[in-house]
């Protein structure tokens, strides 16, 4: 992993989703095998340098997935986990679902990037169920992704639309996985979940004091 041990602060305002994706992309090592979850994490692919050598995994049975298919390229037999038509790069490989999830569960992926409703200070992840009593439960591959990769990165806004923090002392939404998140990329800060606690490595348009005030989670700040 690229170290982000020194603290970086930017005076500009919160990042948009593309900027968060670019930040994640910069922290993905060259040649890494990576699964990008459905939704915002997919944007990370757009920010990987052409020569990064990063190999994308899609859990429906493929390594070295290429970009989304353009109009003339659509092949109904070639889709990603979000059921979007995609393309294949040289050196791709296909395999069945049990082999694909064995690859994940066995810890062979270097990085997995996921969205989240909530992440706890211990790295618990909640991203599959809002807890609404009338919601039909549907988990897909979320729990498998959460436990499998060597590093699990989360991409999310730090606050809900109503202003509630999503980095929390303890998740109130149903869990996806226990103590599985390594790093959280948000619009206003990047957090490392460490054995010593939650460490802030970067902020964007927010001060330490403001951040500490708005979260109920004790924060460590890397040295400036």
């Amino acid at each position, binding site marked *: 992993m690229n170290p982000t041990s020194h603290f970086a602060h930017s005076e500009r305002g919160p990042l948009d989703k593309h900027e968060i994706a670019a930040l994640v992309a910069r922290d993905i090592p060259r040649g890494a095998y990576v699964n990008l979850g459905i939704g915002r994490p997919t944007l990370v692919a757009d920010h990987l340098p052409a020569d990064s050598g990063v190999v994308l995994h*899609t*859990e*429906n*049975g*493929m390594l070295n997935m290429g970009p989304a298919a353009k109009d003339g390229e659509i*092949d*109904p*037999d*070639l*889709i*990603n986990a979000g*059921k979007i038509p995609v393309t*294949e790069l040289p050196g791709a490989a*296909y*395999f*069945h*679902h*049990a082999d*694909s*999830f*064995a690859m*994940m*569960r066995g810890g062979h992926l270097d990085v997995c990037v996921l969205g989240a409703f909530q992440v706890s200070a211990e790295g*618990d992840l909640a991203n599959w*169920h809002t807890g609404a009593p*009338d*919601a*039909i*439960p*549907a*988990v*897909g*591959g*979320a*729990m*498998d992704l959460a*436990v*499998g990769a060597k590093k699990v990165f989360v991409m999310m806004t730090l606050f809900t639309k109503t202003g509630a923090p999503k980095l929390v002392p303890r998740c109130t939404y*149903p*869990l*996806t*996985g*226990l103590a599985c998140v390594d790093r959280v990329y948000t619009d206003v800060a990047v957090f490392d979940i460490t054995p010593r606690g939650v460490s802030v490595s970067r902020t964007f348009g927010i001060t330490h004091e403001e951040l500490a005030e708005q979260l109920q989670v004790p924060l460590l700040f890397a040295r400036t």
Partner: protein
Amino acid sequence: MTTQLCADADEAVAGIEDGSTVLVGGFGMAGMPVDLIDALIRQGARDLTVVSNNAGNGDTGLAALLAKGRVRKVICSFPRQADSWVFDGLYRAGRIELEVVPQGNLAERMRAAGAGIGAFYCPTGVGTPLAEGKETREIDGRTYVLEYPIKGDVALIGAQRADRMGNLVYRKTARNFGPVMATAATTVIAQVRDIVETGMIDPETVVTPSIYVDRVVREVPAA
């Protein structure tokens, strides 16, 4: 035993009994055995348990089978989708049972059924609502949930090509659950785009060996 080449999808699904557990391949439309599902609708078996990644989309295929009230229970990873209104309606009306299983556990539990494994300790889902009530065990400092096999009476799968002996190859991500389901059901029925003479598939590239395949039918090309 010898793989049966069927004249049509109706012959292929003949004899599926009421109360059967039916594994249905496909992820999205890729690998979805559309002809076989349509034939199963005509065939009439009811009180089915369907194991598939989703619980039907739109008004055709699995959704149509559900709409006819023929499915007692769905075991799947992701029932709720933008166009899963048939399932949603039955579920909210309490007219269908649902077991939600993490996608990898769904695959691995079928793999276990096919491989003669009695049960396995799996790290996925530990501490989540989907592991509630399940036995857990700590092994080498990590907690695992005990998961049991999912075995089918019948598997309906889609593949790219069969030889006359029943060996199968798939195409791209349409492979998905097919090879696993083929190992996990008593009767395996494959819909393929193409049937070739035995010997025309390179033995190094066979994905589902003929031993797993009971019946093969060529799919009806899209009009």
